[in-house]
């Protein structure tokens, strides 16, 4: 079953408000990380993932974006979403496995999603079904050596049903990716291994959908990587491209400003802009 939305921009706005609401309620960090990848998740998890497909948020520190999407899809109720970060919740800062449909694995210890995703994609090949696997990684995460073990494995086994999405915002926990270990998400590395590669604007949902459809239409034995150029903190003026918003939580004033930014940017054409107060 495929969900469609007539106004992806509104969805980009609504989910950002939901994410900001979660981080505000929890007084938690990783806000920039979630805002960086939410548009990728709208395109894949919400708009393109079919029932038989799997989506893995390998960069599990952006769990709030995952929870917001699963709430949008109806897999996590508003009541459960309200427990985010609290003691006893099924929605911790990094995804816990087997608590909700759509989260079959623990992620957030970086570098695990691609091996797991390769295994799921391989299982589909062995079972002869047409399921696809989307694995969303951060560019910093590709520092992890398992990335490259898994990439070779995926090629060797002809896993053209595996789509790797790299949220390439150029920043990782404590520095520019270029300064920390260099550009480990350089497209040439993936090309050299033998992946089908596409580079795309990671905030242009329509463009992303086109690219996803394009790679999915190529059952050529080669796994796919979509390198999405993104902006950490996208949508909130004072967070964009700022390293500190990897970890910082918002003050109440900053939260207000963030919501105002998002509303102005994505929701000004929506009649009921006061919706954010009812979301969170």
């Amino acid at each position: 079953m495929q969900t469609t939305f007539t106004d992806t921009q509104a969805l980009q706005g609504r989910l950002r408000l939901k994410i900001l609401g979660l981080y505000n309620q929890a007084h938690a960090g990783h806000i920039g990380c979630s805002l960086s990848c939410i548009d990728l998740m709208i395109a894949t998890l919400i708009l393109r993932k079919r029932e038989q497909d799997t989506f893995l948020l390998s960069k599990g520190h952006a769990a709030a974006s995952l929870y917001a999407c699963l709430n949008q899809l109806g897999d996590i109720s508003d009541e459960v979403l309200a427990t985010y970060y609290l003691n006893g919740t099924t929605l911790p800062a990094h995804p816990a496995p087997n608590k909700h449909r759509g989260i079959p694995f623990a992620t957030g210890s970086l570098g695990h999603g691609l091996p797991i995703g390769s295994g799921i994609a391989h299982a589909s090949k062995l079972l002869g079904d047409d399921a696809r696997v989307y694995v969303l990684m951060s560019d910093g995460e590709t520092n992890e050596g398992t990335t490259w073990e898994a990439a070779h494995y995926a090629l060797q086994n002809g896993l053209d049903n595996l789509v790797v999405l790299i949220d390439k915002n150029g920043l990782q926990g404590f520095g520019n990716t270029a300064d920390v270990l260099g550009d480990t998400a350089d497209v040439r590395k993936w090309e050299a291994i033998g992946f089908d590669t596409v580079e795309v604007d990671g905030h242009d949902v329509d463009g992303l959908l086109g690219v996803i459809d394009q790679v999915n239409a190529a059952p050529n034995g080669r796994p796919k990587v979509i390198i999405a150029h993104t902006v950490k903190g996208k949508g909130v003026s004072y967070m964009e491209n700022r390293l500190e918003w990897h970890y910082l939580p918002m003050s109440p004033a900053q939260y207000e400003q963030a919501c105002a930014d998002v509303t102005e940017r994505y929701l000004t054409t929506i009649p009921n802009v006061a919706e954010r107060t009812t979301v969170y």
Partner: protein
Amino acid sequence: MKKYEYTDKKDTRSGFGAGIAELGKTHPNVIALTADLAGSLKLEAFIKEFPDRFIQCGIAEANMMGVSAGLTIGGKIPYATTFANFATGRVYDQIRQSIAYSNKNVKICASHAGLTLGEDGATHQILEDLGMMKMLPNMTVINPCDYNQTKAATIAIADHVGPVYLRFGRPVIPIFTPADQKFEIGKAWHVNEGDAVSIFCTGHLVWEAIKAGEMLSEQGIEADIINIHTIKPLDEEAILASVKKTGCAVSAEEHMINGGLGDSVAQVLARNYPAPLEYVGVHDTFGESGTPDQLMQKYGLTADKIVEQVKKVMARK
């Protein structure tokens, strides 16, 4: 002392190879993975029979663990095989996150465990693996003692839903358990009835415990020998029943005493029925090069050492 005899000797890893080849016929969902050690893990028969159910992962153990976790989606039962050192310590976080915490039906099958790997030396002689694996929630940990028991365990774990760590080895050792045995996970095997001392043994030390039991019997000491093949879940009932009868115990394993079977026994006794316990195992040191026999002698993993520890613990009663 009950008499145990053997007519043949084989390595436990060959028991694994035979077990998975047999399992392949009855369990179409079983698939075998390896990190370029198919020969060492004796997978040839399985690969020959079921080439489409064998996955070569290359020398990339971390990825193999993640891939195995992913393969379970849809019902496959992956047997991920490599040396014990690379099956545990090297990939602990992959096992922890993707297999144990995510509670996936992966069977981690590890050969060449312990000192009996021999001349390859300390880099490959892992003596901490049982401890690492038993600490993981959801993980079942099994260390069989001979070819037949390893084969039976290999078959039995396919029908257990959940992560398993199955540990075996390289040396050729006596086959003294029945070929037609049914392996029951978590149920200890009562090797010999006695009332003087309990000997809890696992893996390659079970045969040593039997030899020790014979020596002790000649001296009028009848040992209650219990094979704890399943380190976790531990058969606490069997341990307590034995020690309540004997009043003291010796543990014997080819593993570090920190974190091994002996520590599990100690915990059960401390919580339920405090009694003197002595360990036969490796004492906080890495291994070294040597023949398996030389190393087992040097590090005190022998029948003689078990007898010595029995005397020591009985004096503490």
